[in-house]
């Protein structure tokens, strides 16, 4: 398990996260939702050890995160960034190969190449392998990066549970690929026994693919639980300040469907008149 | 026919003995680095020995036809060695030091002569070059003539007025720099019967402010021909040099020029240069 225990983060008198406790369980997808500035990215940085909590602690497989070396962490946890700033002319395959850097001493070159090919296949980017990463579209780059983090976790002989952290993985993708990526995350959670955390903006994507949903607001955990309970209209209204209706998802058992009401601008128009 | 080998033998032994004799007066191969040194080599009529000179060796004209070893402060060890010299004449200005060491390490005689800006300095150069070229008699003759000429010039200037002179050096960019003490120009102004207007303010070449120029109030401005050309002639120079217009030199448009190397070379032609400069001083200041 990868968990935060009563974690707070304060930077220069500004509280970014407050008393946050949640757990990513192997085999499950945890979706983190929340309005802009709620602390989702901060949470991801804490879990990926880019930032250290001011209070509380983070544990990875029952040991404090700080007790693992950076190299050990890299074999247990991969992070998909929101966007990529790679500006040097690597081929897509070379980028995916970088996911195997943590295994450059422990595995043979051939083993690592196999992992890269498997990752390219499951991320549906095999046809892009020889293209220059910088020449790809935003969505293609995102999928190649996904292949890279999958290559990083592609390790059949691991006894430890591994974790995949996704920061808005669907932001640059078309409809088909949004579902492909989240479906894949769900599938790998089950088959590779991965613990997946994904930051999302689309409530219905979360409703469809997440096993657990956490909603953050102003640095605090507001709601945490299964989709049916966490996506109650009152929770959503409280967090996002929008009027919603929630109904059962057609043909999907135990999955809610969130329908957002159009905002009402009458108050403003009367004001100007 | 039996005599032939004998004859040949005799012939060769004759040649051999001649060449052994010639060994003592074997023509030297000399590289001269420094305009003054090259002039001295010519004045000693040893120019046949010269196989290379540096970029400051511009007089006499014939010297410019010789292979160039480059700027005297940026010599190349291998370049100098490629001329297969027996003797390399340099002044203290030559460098870089490591290159001079390499030339010596290659077994080449390197004679380093002082580059003092004085008559004594020139005498030391003449003597040093003459000794290195094994021409002590010619050296003595040259230095005697040099001293006599210089004494004559000095005698002529003993009771003349001493105009205040400022020498400016154009460095290509920025304001021109004025010669202070310990410069060739300072020494030359003195030898020509003038006094350096900036003798008391600084040593070496320093840029001077408008106010310093007005305070110095020189009677004459002395520049090299190249500097005057780069300043764009007398009229432009008067405007370009800060404060000059407000000095006596500026008001009376007294600007004196000489060819730079002749003026500052401190070679065997020093007496002539001093005499020419003195004439320029006094025709201008009257």
């Amino acid at each position, binding site marked *: 398990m990868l968990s935060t225990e009563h974690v707070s983060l304060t930077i220069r008198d500004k509280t970014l996260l407050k008393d946050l406790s949640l757990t990513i369980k192997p085999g499950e997808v945890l979706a983190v939702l929340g309005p802009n500035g709620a602390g989702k990215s901060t949470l991801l*940085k804490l879990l*990926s*050890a*880019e930032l250290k909590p001011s209070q509380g602690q983070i544990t990875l497989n029952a040991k404090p995160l700080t007790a693992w*070396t*950076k*190299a050990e*962490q*890299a*074999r247990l*946890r*991969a*992070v998909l*960034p929101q966007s*990529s*700033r*790679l*500006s*040097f*002319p*690597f*081929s897509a395959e*070379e*980028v995916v190969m*970088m*996911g195997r*850097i*943590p295994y*450059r001493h422990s595995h043979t070159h051939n083993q690592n190449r196999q992992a890269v090919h498997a990752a390219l296949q499951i991320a549906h980017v095999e046809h892009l392998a020889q293209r220059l990463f*910088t020449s790809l579209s935003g969505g293609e780059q995102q999928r190649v990066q996904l292949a890279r983090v999958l290559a*990083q976790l592609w390790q059949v002989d691991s006894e430890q549970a591994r974790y995949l952290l996704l920061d808005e993985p669907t932001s640059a993708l078309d409809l088909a690929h949004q579902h492909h990526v989240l479906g894949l995350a769900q599938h790998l959670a089950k088959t590779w026994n991965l613990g997946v955390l994904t930051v999302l903006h689309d409530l219905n994507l979360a409703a469809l693919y997440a096993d657990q949903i956490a909603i953050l607001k102003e640095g605090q955990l507001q709601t945490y639980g299964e989709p049916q309970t966490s996506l109650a209209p009152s929770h959503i209204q409280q967090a996002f300040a929008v009027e919603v209706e929630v109904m059962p998802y057609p043909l999907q058992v135990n999955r809610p469907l969130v329908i957002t009401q159009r905002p009402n601008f009458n108050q403003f128009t009367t004001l100007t008149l | 026919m039996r005599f032939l080998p004998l004859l040949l033998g005799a012939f060769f032994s004759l040649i051999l003995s001649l060449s052994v004799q010639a060994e003592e007066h074997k023509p030297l191969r000399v590289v001269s680095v420094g305009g003054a040194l090259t002039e001295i080599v010519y004045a000693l009529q040893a120019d046949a020995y010269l196989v*290379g000179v540096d970029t400051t060796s511009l007089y006499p004209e014939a010297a410019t036809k010789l*292979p*160039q*070893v*480059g700027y005297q*402060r*940026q*010599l*190349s*060890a*291998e*370049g*100098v*060695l*490629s*001329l297969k010299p027996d003797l390399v004449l340099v002044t203290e*200005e030559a*460098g*870089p*030091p*490591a*290159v001079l*060491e*390499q030339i010596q*390490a*290659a*077994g080449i005689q390197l004679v380093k002569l002082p580059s003092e800006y004085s008559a004594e300095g020139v005498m030391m150069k003449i003597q040093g070059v003459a000794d290195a070229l094994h021409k002590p008699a010619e050296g003595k003759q040259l230095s005697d003539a040099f001293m006599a000429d210089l004494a004559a010039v000095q005698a002529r200037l003993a009771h003349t007025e001493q105009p205040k002179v400022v020498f400016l050096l154009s460095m290509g960019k920025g304001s021109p720099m004025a010669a202070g003490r310990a410069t060739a120009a300072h020494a030359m102004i003195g030898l020509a019967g003038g006094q350096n207007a900036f003798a008391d303010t600084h040593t*070496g070449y*320093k840029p001077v402010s408008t106010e310093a120029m007005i305070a110095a109030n020189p009677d004459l401005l002395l520049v090299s021909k190249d500097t005057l050309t780069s300043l764009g002639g007398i009229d432009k120079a008067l405007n370009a040099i800060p404060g000059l217009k407000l000095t006596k030199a500026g008001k009376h448009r007294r600007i004196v020029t000489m060819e730079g190397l002749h003026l500052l070379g401190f070679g065997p032609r020093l007496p002539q240069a001093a005499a020419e400069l003195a004439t320029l001083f006094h025709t201008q200041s009257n």
Partner: protein
Amino acid sequence: MNKRSQGLLISLVLLLLVMTILALGIGAVEIPAAQVLRILAQQLGWPMANPPDAGQITVLVEIRAPRVALGILVGAGLAITGATIQGLFRNPLADPGLIGISSGAALAAVSVIVLGATVFQGLSSALGAYTLPLAAFIGSLLVTGLVYRLAKLEGRTDIATMLLAGIAINALLGAATGLLTYAANDTQLRTLTFWLMGSLGSATWTQVLTTLPLILLPVLVLPWFAPALNAVLLGEAEAGHLGFNLERIKQVLIVLVALIVGTAVALTGVIGFVGLVVPHLLRLAFGPDHRLLLPASALLGASLLLVADLIARTVVNPAELPIGIITALIGGPFFLWLLNRYRHRSF
């Protein structure tokens, strides 16, 4: 490492070998190739019936050979340094000369030359031959750290900020150097001119051998950081996710870079553009993978500097040009071409 990479490295080793032989064989003093080999054999203790000409031995062994060795060291050092900081700064236009690292080294060295007799006297006598390299090392270390801090924006260095910081620092150091020339005497001024132009002309075996480890060790150690630099190109956070302790690695890399540039400047003065041109040519042809780029840059940089020095010392024979002029003549237009290229599309 694949066959293509191995092939490239082997070709570059061969190229360097050929350039070394050419650089040893060509010069103002004519020494035929066969004679070069005979002298080398004789130097290695090969018995010889009629030994080669003593003058030629001196030129080859005492003048040309240390110069060639220095060229290889400095060329390899500057090129691998360029490749490293381009990776570390995630910025393909970083060059030790352009961003002021070399100037920092030069200023520190100039300070020691000018003020050495008075201010740093104790230091100079204690450190001997290492005084200049050490001072230059400290100078380049400070500037590298400073530019990195100034130009870093959201985890990468912004090209414009970095170049502007470089201009500012170069101007500042130029002014400080200019100020020091007022305090310098004539002999020191001559040494300063040498610094600012760059030259391999003063190479001696003592000098090359005493400072050899200061460049050679970092050059040999740097390729070890290739995976980390590759990861850095993805992003600093990403490099952390891939298991690298980036803060530590950055510190080590900056120290290694400063060590190479400082020593190189102390030995040869400022020689620009090698660190820019070499990694670029290699990246254009073989991609940005540092596992290949770093060793290949070292090899090609050494060859390039040997060619530049060969031109510098033969083109106005028997005089010679400062090598900095040659590298700037090659590098200046190349840099403008790169700027234009990057203005129109990403790297």
